[in-house]
């Protein structure tokens, strides 16, 4: 029958597509990787050059400004000296030596608070998307507390919970909760209606639609929320410590400020910054892996 001839054309199309861009993926895997690597290397080189340039600018400003603005080498040296253990810090009255235990303390609190806030925010965000009642109940809280800078809660928490760790954790948790709630809600609502309709016509019920359509589609934007939340979480934890802690990075900064040790202060800010950057990088890497299906790097 004539249909035999037409069916073969379908195979022609498959073959034609294979010879095109997809061929590189399927055949010469080595070729693709080489291209990718050179692009990656070039980006890395530029990034490195940028950093070196900034370090140079820093060094020059340091030479000009003198004692107000220490040079990068001095800061690096300070970090290395005092990281593990330090008699200097003990002389300032801090309970344990070295930057490390304080950095660990602050990091731990941020991560715990972030995790709690994340879990709560995701749940409330999806609940608000699914049930209008939930949205109406939670939305005023988010609106009111969304406008005020979260750190005004810090003194209250310090009075109510005494311990800085708890105050920090609750601060970070609350902040993360609010950000994730907004991002999750928006991400869920931004899932293109066409996917929801298609799923319905294939017989999916609400549970299936949530698990297999909404959740994966919203994930990229949710990761964005995680990044935003954690970007500020580190500073938030610090402010709680700056207000009068016994322990943690903020406490060390305050002690160093009292003796006008600007090198030390900068050193700690740099350390905290590097941790923040490192953590952000982790999140970006995780997002890249989880959204490897995306051709644009963003939600569909």
């Amino acid at each position, binding site marked *: 029958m004539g*249909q035999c001839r037409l069916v073969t054309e379908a195979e*022609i199309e*498959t073959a034609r597509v294979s010879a095109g861009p997809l061929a590189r993926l399927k055949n010469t895997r080595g070729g693709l990787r080489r291209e990718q690597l050179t692009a990656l290397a070039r980006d890395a080189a530029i990034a490195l050059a940028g950093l070196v340039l900034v370090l140079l600018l820093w060094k020059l400003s340091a030479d000009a400004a003198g004692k107000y603005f220490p040079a990068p080498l001095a800061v690096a040296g300070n970090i290395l000296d005092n990281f593990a253990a330090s008699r200097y810090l003990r002389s300032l009255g801090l309970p344990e030596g070295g930057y490390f235990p304080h950095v660990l303390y602050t990091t731990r609190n941020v991560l715990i608070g972030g995790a709690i806030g994340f879990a709560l925010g995701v749940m409330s965000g999806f609940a608000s998307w699914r049930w209008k009642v939930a949205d109406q109940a939670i939305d005023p809280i988010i609106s009111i507390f969304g406008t005020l800078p979260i750190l005004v809660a810090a003194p209250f928490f310090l009075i109510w919970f005494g311990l800085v760790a708890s105050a920090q954790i609750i601060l970070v948790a609350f902040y993360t909760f609010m950000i994730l709630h907004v991002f999750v809600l928006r991400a869920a609502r931004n899932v293109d209606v066409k996917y929801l309709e*298609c799923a*319905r016509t*294939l017989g999916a019920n609400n549970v299936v639609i949530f698990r*297999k359509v909404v959740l994966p589609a919203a994930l990229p934007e949710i990761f964005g929320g995680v990044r935003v939340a954690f970007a500020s979480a580190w500073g938030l934890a610090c402010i709680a410590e700056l207000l009068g802690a016994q322990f943690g990075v903020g406490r060390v900064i305050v002690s160093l400020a009292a003796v006008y040790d600007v090198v030390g202060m900068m050193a700690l800010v740099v350390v905290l910054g590097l941790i923040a950057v490192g953590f952000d990088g982790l999140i970006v890497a995780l997002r890249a892996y989880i959204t490897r299906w995306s051709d644009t790097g963003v939600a*569909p």
Partner: protein
Amino acid sequence: MIDIRDARCTFRHTSGRLVEALRGVSVTIDDGEFVCLVGRSGHGKSTLLRALAGLNPLSSGAIAFDGNTVTGPSPERGMVFQEDTVFPWMRVHDNVAFGLRSLGTRESETEKLVSEWLSAVKLTGFAHSWPKELSGGMRKRVAIATVFATGAKTLLMDEPFGSLDYVTRITLHSLLLDLWARTNRTIVFVTHDIEEALILGDRILVMSEGQIVDDIRVDLKRPRDEEVRASTRAVTVTKSIIRNLGLAGGVDETPEPKSSDLR
């Protein structure tokens, strides 16, 4: 058997304007028919199709499938959309299996059906690819496989090949006709391309301004290659369709409600 009785659908645009998308459509479609809905953009074809799917409620009138009134979407009425609705976050295999898994099919049965339908649409080697690695035409084939795999008795297709290039389109035409001949399901196919309707349909319903203005039986022999399409009978049918579309219409005054406007 699909029974549409005096279907009406009126929308209100947010600007306040009322748009009567369907103005009393009544038609019966028998099992196994390949029906094409032809008409100009904005004259009700997509609205009718979506009402058949259960995605748009009717303002009045009723649609019944084998006696059961349509109240919402159901896997009995599979739909292939105009836009690309293959889930980008699932591999091809999981996409085709989606409907089956939603219906609770056993995993071994699902595997069998998925590979069967993937080979039916000539995509066997691509079961583990991400949709982003496929061309538009190949993704359409995935969508077709998905909808056929659920065993839906009726297939509703809303200008599915509209965004594809000519060669891909004619390839998919033959694929679709092949699948239809093998499975004998009912297909309702919306298109604004009269030629496409002639290649595919047993029956062409011409829609204009929310009503069916003509119901043509296309009794051309299959396969409808170029010679058949150039025959006198085909030309007569084409001319009559064009006349039907041209007469009742005139210049478009109201911009059509886009599918994204209609919820």
